[in-house]
């Protein structure tokens, strides 16, 4: 590349220079080849703050080209403030189209949710990652964490589940339930609800995890074994509230969120809710 085309590429509204994209792509390919392994990468600073989706954004920018159709959601909501800001950055800098309908999207960047439907073999799901290290609750020292993953020594994780079950009667992990990927690496699934966890197992779609602040990329390829860590005789429980249905679309087939101190429930996946309402109208 001659100097001036490098300069030209800098003047465009690219958020990432070409070298950064290549570095991220190489890290993505390594992550897919070693499912569940946290691949370190340079992680550039983005127009969004660290901890606000800079990792997810870098993956999306490295993956998307102008033929793609992008969906961006936060807590399942296309219109969430953070989702709107990120979508604007992605579409302006890549020229890709945008949609709120998961089935139409080729790349879906999401914070804390997997869309209720619409993900298939053509889809790439990009999840934003606040904390990439699943074992941080049981070990602080990074050298020891690296060893535990290198040797697949996860007994301390199991002991913490045992203690949790003994002390509380149930496994109290709320979101981001740790899972064993391909019978090898324990992975932090990002703060998605337990409701979404089963859909990572043998999924038709590829999932890419981007941790910008902690500079890690990891992946779950399609059709890969993903098992929540739980005891054989302690079944994995998803969020459930008896009798709760969405006050808008009347369904209980989606993850619901509620008003404070009330039993008014609503779908977190707003587009799914909208389409359900239109279908039954």
């Amino acid at each position, binding site marked *: *590349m001659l*100097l001036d085309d*490098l300069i030209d590429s*800098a003047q465009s509204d*690219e*958020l990432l*220079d070409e070298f*950064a994209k290549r*570095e991220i792509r190489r890290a993505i390919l390594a992550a897919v080849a070693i499912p569940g392994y946290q691949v*370190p*990468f*340079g992680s*550039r*600073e*983005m*127009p969004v*703050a*660290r*901890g*606000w989706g*800079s990792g997810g954004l870098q993956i999306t920018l490295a993956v998307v080209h102008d033929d793609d159709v992008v969906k961006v959601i*936060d*807590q399942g*909501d296309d*219109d*969430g*403030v*953070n989702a*709107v*800001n990120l979508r*604007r950055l992605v579409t302006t800098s890549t020229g890709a189209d945008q949609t709120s309908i998961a089935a139409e999207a080729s790349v879906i960047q999401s*914070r*804390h*949710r997997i869309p209720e439907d619409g993900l298939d073999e053509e889809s790439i799901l990009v999840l934003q990652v*606040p904390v990439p290290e699943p074992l941080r609750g049981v070990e*602080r*020292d*990074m050298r020891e964490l*690296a060893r535990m993953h290198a040797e697949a020594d996860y007994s301390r994780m199991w002991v913490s589940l045992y203690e949790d079950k003994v002390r*509380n*009667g*149930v496994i*109290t992990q*709320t*979101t981001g339930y740790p899972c064993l990927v391909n019978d090898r690496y324990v992975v932090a699934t990002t*703060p*998605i*609800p337990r409701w979404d966890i089963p859909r990572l197992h043998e999924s038709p779609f590829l999932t890419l995890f981007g941790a910008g*602040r*902690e500079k*890690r990329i990891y992946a779950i390829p399609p059709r890969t074994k993903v098992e929540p860590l739980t005891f054989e005789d302690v079944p994995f429980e998803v*969020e*459930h*509230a008896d009798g709760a249905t969405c*006050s808008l679309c009347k369904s209980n087939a989606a993850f*619901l*969120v509620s*008003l404070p101190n009330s039993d*008014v429930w609503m779908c*977190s996946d707003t587009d799914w809710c909208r389409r359900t309402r239109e279908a039954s109208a």
Partner: protein
Amino acid sequence: MGYVSARGGLDAIRAAERLVRRLRLTSESSWLEEDQILEKLRLLVDRVMGEAGLWAPRLAAKALRQSEGDATEAVHLLRAYRSTLPRFAYSESADADDVKVERRIVPAFQRVPGNQLLGRSVDYTARFLERQSDDMAREEAEKLRSEASGTPGDEGGEAHDNTDTTQRSPQRLLEMLREMDLVVDRRRADDPEPFDITRTPARPPAARSALLSSMTRADTGALVNQWYRNILGPDGYLHEVTLGEVRHGALDVVVRHPVTGLPVCVTSVRVTEVEAIEDLEGVDEDRTKFDVGYGLCFGHNERKAIAMANLDIACHRDAGRTQLEQSLLLTTDALDSAGFLEHLKLPHYVTFRSMIERKFAMRKARNRDAS
């Protein structure tokens, strides 16, 4: 009806942006020129460049104006802009001995070859808040300007700019201590490539160059706090340190010309460089010598460079016993720490719903076990 999550929507975000820009650009007072920021808030500009890890005075001034004085926000603007630029070349390695010193302090000795050079520092000025009126200030400025153009160097003593070259690149105290064989030699003969923390994240155990470059662009307050916690706080015990050298000066940046291959000076940067000396008294240390720490950062930021040099020794002597290296590498970056702290403002209602559900599940389990 119904709970509307903080549904920003594109118009809300655009409205917020317009509000921020309008209030920032249409304030009554006159337009804030970049030169004013560069000259009158030069130490803030230096700090922002240091924490961004980028030498770009004009861009740092713009960033500070745009962030309305929020240093961390300005650092973010600088680094995010940097991500859009490709890296053209690597500079030749610069020798810190070539720094043309504008200020140089050697606390370890009263007299030292190359003299102490107090230079432009408020260290010994009285901290009286100047409350004279603008007119009086302008008058004084005029008087000083005429005097300065008249007879140079009359501020007296060694505080003036003088061009005596021994003065500008004095021999380091460290060299003298080496000649006295008083210092542990931490220099490496193999001269490895420095670790590039912008391409590979530094993780313990890391090369010393990774630690130094992480501290070079760390948040000033974070480093000062890490040092002071080690002195007084619960973390550990850090010996008081003697400073061998505190310097502030200009350093040329040389690059090989892509076509001719000849070295070309592309710019000159100002750096603050500190060498610290610490007494060795550990059971497995060479107690007949001192240990040495090094700190260097862009601009004039002595507070940061001194903390760096101290923490460089502390990390070396800790030798992995505690997690000091991990906390220096991982927790001192302004953007990482502030960004993650403030990300708590983002919506978390999916998580919170899941947390509430587990509370009810626990109660159910407890009632079940109780009955």
